[in-house]
């Protein structure tokens, strides 16, 4: 799956998921977890929504809430670890 994963597609998915989660659109470098927009207990649900949206698996063992702190980080993280 990772081969066909394009950064633009991931970014669009991340924006969509984050926007629905936060309630309004945020800039790609706005902090989400460290600003309190998404609480750390909900990060795992953000991951689940991303997995569903992109039809990929994100192995939790290597991840930290900080890896999803902005849309930019989220895109990097997904590109790096998605299976």
């Amino acid at each position, binding site marked *: 799956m990772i081969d066909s994963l394009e950064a633009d597609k991931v970014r669009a998915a991340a924006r969509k*998921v984050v926007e629905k989660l936060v309630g309004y659109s945020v800039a790609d470098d706005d902090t989400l977890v460290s*600003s309190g*927009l998404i609480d*750390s207990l909900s990060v795992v*649900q953000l991951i689940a*929504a991303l997995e569903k949206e992109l039809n990929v698996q994100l192995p*939790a063992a290597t991840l930290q809430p900080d890896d999803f*702190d902005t849309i930019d980080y989220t895109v990097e993280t997904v590109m790096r670890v998605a299976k």
Partner: protein
Amino acid sequence: MDAQSFRRQLEENLLQSPEQVLLRIVDAHATVVELTGQQILEQSRALAATHAEGAVTGSVVLLLLPHSAELFLLHIGLVLQGYVPAILAWPTSRVDAEKYQRNLLHQLRNLPAERLITIPALTQNLSHTLPFPVEACTVAGAEKWEEVFSSKVNLDDGERMVSEAMPLPAEAGALFLQFSGGTTGAQKAVVITAEILEAQLERLTETLAFTTQDSVVSWLPMYHDMGLIACLWLPLWSGASSLHFAASDWLLNPGVLFEYIERYQGTFTWLPNFAFSYLAAQFERVGEPRLLGSMRGWINCSEPVRSKSMDVFADRYGAWGVVPEALQACYAMAENVFAVTQTKLGEKVPVYSRTALRASGSQDTTAGGEGRQFDLTDEVYVGSGRPLRGMQLRIVDPKTGAACAERTPGEIHLLTPSLFNGYWGSGGLRTSAFQDGWYNTGDYGFMDGDELFVIGRYKDVIIVAGQNIFPEDVELAAGTVEGVYPGRVVAFGVVNEQHATESVIVIAELRGEFDPARKRATERQIYQTVLTSIGVAPRQVAVVPERWIVKSTAGKISRTETRTRFMTELFNQVAAKPAQRDAVLQGK
């Protein structure tokens, strides 16, 4: 037992089987650092000697470090060397470095100490602003944090007004300090003496029939009494083993708890209530089944115990070896070192029907006093167990001060051998005067026979995922945001059904003209400030016009009445947000 005898006894206990691994710390590279009793003694002493060199014995040494073997060893080593360590909360996620450091200095005003040990980057920034030495300790895997704090922060003179170095009087007999709240505000550093620590550990050991064969597995932070006392000091003192990994590693990978339990034949773990619900909800993500039959106690502690959280956990993991009889509950607080009551191992926790309590004529939702509402809508209350040996409990009517009859709720008061004697703060050591020796916990509950049932709290403390949050600290932090009417901020907790814990709500009045853009900007600023200062993200921040917050007849801001107004007028509006969030998460 005095502090000196305690240290000698600890050394003896650690050397009972000098070759046995007693402490396992999973570091930031997922390496399990293993330490035998002998190694704990040698390495902890060496580390403490290096980093506390020059500090006066008996003085308070603050530890501000991420989860690491060094943090554990320094804490133990400083105790062994006769210093009084105090572990400060490490930020839970990436923070705004400048704001964090300013806030830290602000908090340290209320905490006289003689030394701070922290990571090199923070040492550089803080060493010129504190009136005592700041010592650098390099920690494995802290590169991320070194980067976060790498830029030099120019802290102006106003920020340097921290409390002077002040020694803790030797007669206090202190071993270490533990904080009863999530932040280091005034009067919240509980002085733990050898006498009360030993009293607690001895009773906990006998109640749990805890032996050298036991094995504790924990992700709880060391600045929390449940992590520090139950998961570290109990096994250390008993010569049993414990394994500790970082809370941040558990959050996205909750199954790692089960992995370590299986690998190290875990027998005990302590978890706040939300963790039971969280683990159950994450069943699909926790990976391959693990053998969990070695566990004698999954102890639910530090926030109100919910029957449904325990049930759903037992249902999900029954096939893995989790038996309902191993799900236990405990009532504990830093002011009592740790446990006051504990349910009986090997038996299912007792429950008491809420309807039955009502039928007996007792009010369980509007407790006398301030007319406080308890939001729990559970059908049953879960027992917290019986008092540990020699610990006395009484239930008191808050209006009359008279003792309540059995099965009649009131305030919980304690008289125990491990009860604290004082707090350490800006005024030095403040010994606490209790009424006839009894300590009013501010919690609300009832007794059924000798079983305690905790319903909620009179005090305004908010418990978020097991961590005590003082509304005053949240209000102080939110009040520093530009545009907020000085002093017109209220914080309180609401039940968070989704995570089976509580969430923080902040209401702040906006000074001057009230327009939506300013409201939105101020709300975001408050979110960020509270998270940076307190370490907890509020569920909702509501910026309101001047004079929205309710005052009592005496002209004082009323948290209770403001909360009621919020729940009636605003909560329904903001409740749409989590619902919307759930819909997204379920892919709707």
